């Protein structure tokens, strides 16, 4: 491997000190700041030692993309430009990452779908690009409001997929995400998702690390595939072109290659556990009723639990932080005592409930819902109502509320 000197303790051109990431995230003082989620993305990028950011406007990620443009003007981002479409952006991200850059981009809804062909390509090429997905509706009739259906499409691309609940998660996970996805045995792209607007356009108190500390730069020579370096041997040694011949060994290569992507997802598990302090968070999992959720549905579930406690019903909570790697064993363990597992989701298909049904024994315990979609909010009362109905308790309809 290349002789690369550690830059930790030295300063970049903006006077930020390259800092050991564990110390920066866990030991450095934090400053409470009142920011929107989009502003938090900008602040994370200020500290990310990012080489290239490529933007294309689509709501609700446009604001974050524009704010990162300001960072470029201030000199915190190596290069920044707008692609001509989402497909182009993701292809340009690939080119930048092939060239050894730490790459960041943002996307949402139909833009994510338009670019979809690139994501398994990123994973197959082992490119540790980080992409923020500020989820919104993807289907007709179009909605620009939060809807997590697009996450379902990302789950089988070979990318790491994390689902942040809050702006604080977003800030921390953007920085930690690079540490996981750039591990040589992982080296996969990360789709860091949040529920658009609920996170991106809501102000919240977020504890920020010092602005004069930043991540160590990406070292492309730790890549598990040859770095495209035309100056330094092994020069001109591109990655294996796909061998499109119809024979056993070319198929075996393709098959092994695909398996290797998912093996790398598995290898990310220990690093994700290390940086995120576990793939899930749990509360009261000895209860008969457990809510399992990801994203802002966790917040709504937490509030529903508080409401149910007022009525004498005790519930537990499982917050799923990473969807890929999927926390199979953790969810099985956390739900082993549950007689009823409720999965509230901001999408119409219930992809999370399907994953959980495929994971736990006695899957009849899993109640898929409540579901909202198309940008509707999910009042905690409808989670309460769903749980009480399943338990045979009297509940009131919310349909007439506000009329």
């Amino acid at each position, binding site marked *: 491997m*290349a*002789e690369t000197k550690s830059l930790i303790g030295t300063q970049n051109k903006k006077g930020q000190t390259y800092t050991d990431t564990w110390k920066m995230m866990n030991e450095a003082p934090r400053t409470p700041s009142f920011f929107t989620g989009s502003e938090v993305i900008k602040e994370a990028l200020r500290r990310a030692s990012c080489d290239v950011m490529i933007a294309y406007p689509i709501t609700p990620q446009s604001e974050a993309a524009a704010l990162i443009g300001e960072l470029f003007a201030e000199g915190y981002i190596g290069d920044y430009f707008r692609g001509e479409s989402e497909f182009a952006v993701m292809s340009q991200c690939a080119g930048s990452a092939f060239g050894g850059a730490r790459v960041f981009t943002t996307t949402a809804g139909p833009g994510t779908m338009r670019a979809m062909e690139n994501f398994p390509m990123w994973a197959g090429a082992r490119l540790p690009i980080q992409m923020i997905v500020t989820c919104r509706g993807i289907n007709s009739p179009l909605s620009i409001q939060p809807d997590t259906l697009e996450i379902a499409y990302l789950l089988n691309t070979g990318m790491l997929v994390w689902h942040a609940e809050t702006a604080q998660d977003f800030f921390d996970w953007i920085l930690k995400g690079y540490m996981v996805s750039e591990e040589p045995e992982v080296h996969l792209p990360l789709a860091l998702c949040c529920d658009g607007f609920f996170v991106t356009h809501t102000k919240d108190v977020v504890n920020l690390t010092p602005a004069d500390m930043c991540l160590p730069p990406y070292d492309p020579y730790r890549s598990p595939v040859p770095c495209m370096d035309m100056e330094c041997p*092994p020069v001109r040694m591109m990655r294996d072109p796909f061998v499109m011949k119809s024979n056993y060994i070319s198929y*075996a290569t393709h098959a092994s290659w695909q398996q290797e992507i998912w093996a790398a997802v598995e290898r990310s598990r220990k690093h994700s556990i290390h940086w995120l302090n576990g793939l899930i968070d749990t509360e009261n999992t000895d209860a008969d009723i457990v809510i399992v959720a990801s994203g802002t549905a966790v917040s709504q579930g937490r509030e529903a639990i508080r409401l149910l406690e007022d009525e004498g019903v005790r519930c537990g909570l499982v917050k799923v932080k990473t969807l890929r790697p999927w926390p199979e064993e953790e969810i099985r363990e956390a739900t082993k005592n549950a007689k009823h597992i409720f999965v509230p989701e901001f999408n119409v298909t219930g992809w999370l409930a399907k994953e959980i049904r495929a994971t736990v024994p006695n899957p009849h315990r899993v109640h898929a819902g409540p579901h909202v979609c198309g940008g509707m909010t999910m009042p905690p009362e409808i989670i309460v109502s769903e749980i009480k109905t399943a338990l045979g308790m009297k509940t009131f309809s919310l349909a007439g509320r506000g009329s």
Partner: protein
Amino acid sequence: MSDYRVLPGPEHFLPPAAASMGIRLPNPGEAHINGVITSEENAYEEAARQFLMAKVPTIFPGPLVLWAWNEKAAKKATAIRHLFNTLKECVQPNQKPMLIPMPDYRPKYPKINPEIEINPNHPNLTIWHNKIDCCVFIGVHCHQANLSLKIIRGGTSCYTIAMCAQAGHEDAMLSFRDASVDKIMRLADTIKRLKGTVQPKLTPVKNAVSD
């Protein structure tokens, strides 16, 4: 811990990636043998034994050590030459150590000459043609190494060892991690120390070829 073990093949038409079967990579200071985490000390002993037992123990250096693209690569290449020379000194006359470079990964099929070249796309050809029953990968990019190791495990009975400069390889039967010049030299020393204490396989090898 997984019950799955990474053993010499031929395992399957399409063997699973060992990571997907619950095999985990060693932490710094550790190694794995057949997917079971062990100390580096054990791994040196076992790797040396496997080399001394094999009919055709073979070193496959990859591009990360074959090209003198930095000082460390050049030193590693020198250490690998020492390892090969040590191996030649320590085996018996009926054993045939080999050093087969893997200078790059560009596919050459169908013109690859499997007598002289290994390539990640068809490593089994090189192993079949040379009847290799034990090999070590050094200086091969991790992704390419994993492809090769899995194809080898799928179609041959060759015992595979990986000396990885990064986190190691689940798909090898034995893997070191954080490989350095010192570690290569230590493997050579262990082979030297065990010389004469390990008997080569007396019966013809399983031909290292899939049935």
